[in-house]
């Protein structure tokens, strides 16, 4: 549960998920459609390769999700079978949206992770094992955040814990 395994799919700095991973500029298109073309402009074939690998881990640069607030981006990432996102920093609202929609998200230095590397991430310790030869320490997620992610997001959490009890 707390370990996520997968291949690294790299993206660069300042990726705006409104532009690259939502229908903000493709009105009327649903998440299913967007999931087939997401990040295409930045990295042709990105979505197709993720699909062939049956999902994976997005490894990005600074400010992933910058200037974008749309929750739809997370729905699209789930459809693309993205299991976790690693980046040194995230757009503030993107970070919240990932947690609120049950997508694991960790802040760490990603400069040493190459595209296609096999990763093993321990959410509890924040340790990212890269190809069994290198380990990167990510910022620890607060226990409340881990709880919300593990329950699949904020609304599933509140359905179970309308009193916001994180201990139960």
């Amino acid at each position, binding site marked *: 549960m707390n370990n996520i395994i997968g291949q690294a799919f790299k993206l660069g700095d300042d990726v705006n998920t409104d532009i690259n991973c939502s229908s903000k500029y493709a*009105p*009327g298109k649903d998440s299913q459609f967007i999931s087939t073309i997401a990040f295409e402009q930045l990295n042709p074939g990105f979505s197709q390769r993720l699909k062939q690998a049956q999902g994976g881990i997005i490894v990005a640069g600074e*400010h992933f999700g*910058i*200037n974008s*607030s*749309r*929750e*739809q981006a997370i729905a699209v990432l789930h459809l693309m079978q993205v299991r976790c996102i690693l980046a040194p*920093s995230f*757009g*503030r*609202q993107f*970070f*919240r*949206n990932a947690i*609120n*929609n049950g997508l694991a998200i960790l802040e760490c230095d990603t400069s040493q992770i190459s595209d296609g590397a096999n990763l093993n991430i321990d959410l509890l310790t924040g340790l990212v094992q890269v190809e069994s030869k290198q380990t990167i320490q990510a910022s620890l997620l*607060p226990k*409340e*955040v881990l709880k*919300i992610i593990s329950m699949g*997001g*904020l*609304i*599933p959490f*509140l*359905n179970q814990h*309308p009193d*916001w009890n994180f201990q139960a």
Partner: protein
Amino acid sequence: MGSTISEKILAAHAGVSEVKAGQVVVCNVDFAMVTDTRAGNAFQVMKKLDKPALGFAKNTAMVLDHYSPPPHEEAAQTHQSMRNFSKQTGTHLYDIGDGICHQVLPEGGHLTSGNLIVGTDTHSTTYGAFNAFGTGIEGSDVVGVMTSGKIWLRAPQTVKVHLDGQLQPGVWAKDITLTMLGKFKAEGLNYKAIEYVGTAVSAMDIDDRMTLCNHAAELGAKAAILEADEKTINWLNAHGAKTPQPVFADADARYEQEIRINVSDLIPQVARKHAVDDIVGVNEITQQKIQFALIGTCTNGRLDDIRQAAAILKGKKLAPGVRMIITPASRQIYLAALREGLIEIFSMAGASFESAGCGTCVGITNHLVPGDHEVVISTANRNFKGRLVNPNADIWLGSAATVAASALTGYITDPRTIDGGTWRAVA
């Protein structure tokens, strides 16, 4: 070690004695806001609730401002749903033309000093002008608030910015926010709270203080917050807000960084096309022709913005080939401008004065689409390529005075060189 304003407000709303930056807390919210851009998503999220009890709806406002008026059926239907929802749940409703969310919330008396306010728009930082912690959220968050009255927040680090000295006539809060963007760059203060203090803040009227806090969103800030003073309290009382509970930082509060900017030497600034952080003094720009001049948005659509533009355009005509639109931030501001005779000044100058809304800021209504190679100067907060639909047009940003001066000459112009360009309200 003491606490910052943000840490104190979050602690008070979490029911704990102390909150430190980095800590996650669950806070009681005082008021929530949903705009028409995110309402559709919020309604979808509501369907995931096992028990659709939305007890907090009465402390929530639905604001129909971005799609104002609606440009397609999808937006019109979202508006219908918002109106119906408001009737069923007692949510406050601000309909088309009533104004932009960040203006109608304070005008409607929905917030006061010491409050925690959340809204489905990045520029919810604006409420910090009233010493409230205001921050932007999305659909899941706001549905969580409507059902439980609470939200989880990670307490931000605070950056303290001293604005020393005094702004010279013709220089405004927008010139400070652009300076900040040039210094820290877009998202340079991501996740952080900003506390602005100093003589220049004290001297500002409420309209300029709202600009200061509003435009912090482009710095990536989670909140931007000022101390409450007599001006704040008088304004809140005049708008029927609940009794202000001013919150001050402790003398030994821990700041992530503290910087000082002396604004006495500051001149009007502009953001060059396509980037909010490509900032330059307006005097360095020569022979930059413009075709559109826009005054409005949640950043600079307030009465003092409209007054400073009117002072420049009074009895004059726009430069040939320039089209100008003024969009007040709310119906109350529209009425005030009407009563002061400002609308006539703009109309006589050849400009259009439109009803309140977000239309000229973001190209989702097709309200205003510039042609290829046309140059827009706007008081908006963002100028990304294609922000007004056409990626082959350029958008520059400046204060209302700079925009009006540019509309008059047809070139990006320092307002201080124009008769009326150094207007300032008499205290």
